[in-house]
């Protein structure tokens, strides 16, 4: 069923490289000369990732590690018209940038950045609630780690993080593209979305897993969400194929879901329940009290 697109992708595969070579064997022996003790560096990174474990599972993975997003208080473009699309201040060797108008013409962002000598473009994309304000700076294929997010003080209730600004080193010479998530308008498709139980999404910590479709539909209705389509897995099939349907019996069990636009969700359903242990793990990972 899905093999055509997969075949297109397979054609694009870069070649796999030289494989097991003499250098590869030498590396193996070099590694074994080291102590097989826990890697402190990796452990540190894992702890940082652990604060938002669910996002790594469902969404903008690299973004989870950075946890960047920025939305000034006037970021939704409501109220009086802002004088400029961006606010750029100089501070301790950095430009501190905040977005004042998320609906501004992209050219106006670029013009402001260019005026301070930065070759940076900003693309604002409609995203689901957890990613509102998320920012993802790249240069070619590279994540731009020279840019530092400024996180809002206090607890963050969004999987994508709650930054209020971005620090760009003065004298940054490269070019970069920044993707910035904004709230979607009604009917507008999200360009980035995540599981609807992620932190910041409407079903966060709602015990919907393994519940029948009829019951979950009601939970969703109470939150102003309707089901757009169902993704049905055939538990008796060994393949990974799925079928997308407009309707399924109310007795089917819900295994997941995510919003594709404001108020509309796709539900992942099955006729067999997920393992209780898995459900517990997901709830724990989401930071929800386990029932």
């Amino acid at each position, binding site marked *: 069923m899905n093999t055509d697109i997969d075949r297109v992708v397979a054609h694009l595969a870069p070649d796999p*490289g030289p494989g097991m070579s003499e250098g590869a064997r030498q590396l193996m022996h070099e*590694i*074994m000369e080291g102590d097989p003790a826990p890697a402190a560096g990796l452990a540190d990174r894992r702890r940082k990732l652990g604060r938002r474990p669910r996002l790594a599972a469902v969404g903008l993975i690299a973004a989870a590690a950075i946890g960047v997003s920025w939305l000034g208080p006037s970021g939704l473009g409501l109220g009086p018209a802002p004088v400029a699309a961006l606010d750029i201040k100089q501070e301790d060797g950095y430009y501190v940038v905040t977005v004042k108008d998320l609906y501004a013409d992209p050219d106006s962002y670029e013009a402001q950045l260019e005026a301070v000598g930065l070759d940076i473009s900003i693309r604002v994309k409609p995203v689901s609630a957890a990613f509102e304000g998320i920012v993802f700076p790249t240069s070619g294929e590279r994540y731009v780690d020279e840019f530092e997010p400024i996180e809002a003080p206090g607890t963050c209730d969004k999987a994508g993080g709650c930054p209020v600004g971005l620090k760009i080193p003065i004298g940054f010479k490269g070019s970069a593209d920044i993707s910035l998530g904004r709230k979607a308008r009604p009917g507008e498709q999200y360009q980035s979305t995540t599981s609807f139980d992620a932190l910041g999404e409407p079903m966060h910590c709602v015990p919907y897993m393994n519940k029948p479709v009829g019951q979950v539909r009601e939970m969703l209705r109470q939150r102003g969400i309707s089901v757009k389509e169902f*993704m049905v897995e055939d538990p008796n099939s060994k393949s990974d194929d799925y079928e997308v349907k407009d309707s399924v019996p109310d007795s089917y069990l819900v295994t997941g879901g995510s919003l594709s636009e404001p108020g509309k969700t796709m539900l992942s359903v099955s006729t067999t329940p997920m393992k209780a242990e898995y459900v517990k793990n997901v709830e724990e990972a989401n930071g929800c009290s386990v029932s």
Partner: protein
Amino acid sequence: MGPPEPEHRFEEIYTAHYPAVSAYVRRRTDSPDDMADVIAETFTTAWRRLQEVPEGDEARFWLYGVARRTLANHFRSEERRVALALRLREELTAWAGFVVDGDHDEARQAFQRLSPDDRELLALVGWEGLSTGEVAKVLGCSKGAARLRLHRARKRLARALSAADLDLSRYGSRAVSLAEGHS
């Protein structure tokens, strides 16, 4: 027989999975130095966390997951260049010189325009040949979540191909229906 010595087990894992892991890394970075760093760091992690490495083919998905995180962290770290793998570095550099630059057809450009997440999902299936369940293991998510995300990624690529005015029929009817928005 008692449990195998750490060295023995590591050697088994390394020999069985090095080609797949090095291919995974190679397909996601162009620089031979970065490639050698990430391969070395991935297997060093496996050595240091040997008890966590699952048995059999599951080890491969675990290693992909480590390589994936290592790649993501690689560009964010200041102190790079592992003092290992000097010979591997030379080999990869020499070998990279022989690689003919890939064709830049419209399909490749459409793929490149996808988000890194979409590319990774599609690549795990198309390049590493993983099933949805295996993709879920690499990404650390549920099979359901992986399936949803894959579906969307396929749909977006189909649309991008369609927008590039490619003749989708040569890729089959499924691609056409995805591009037209039918699921």
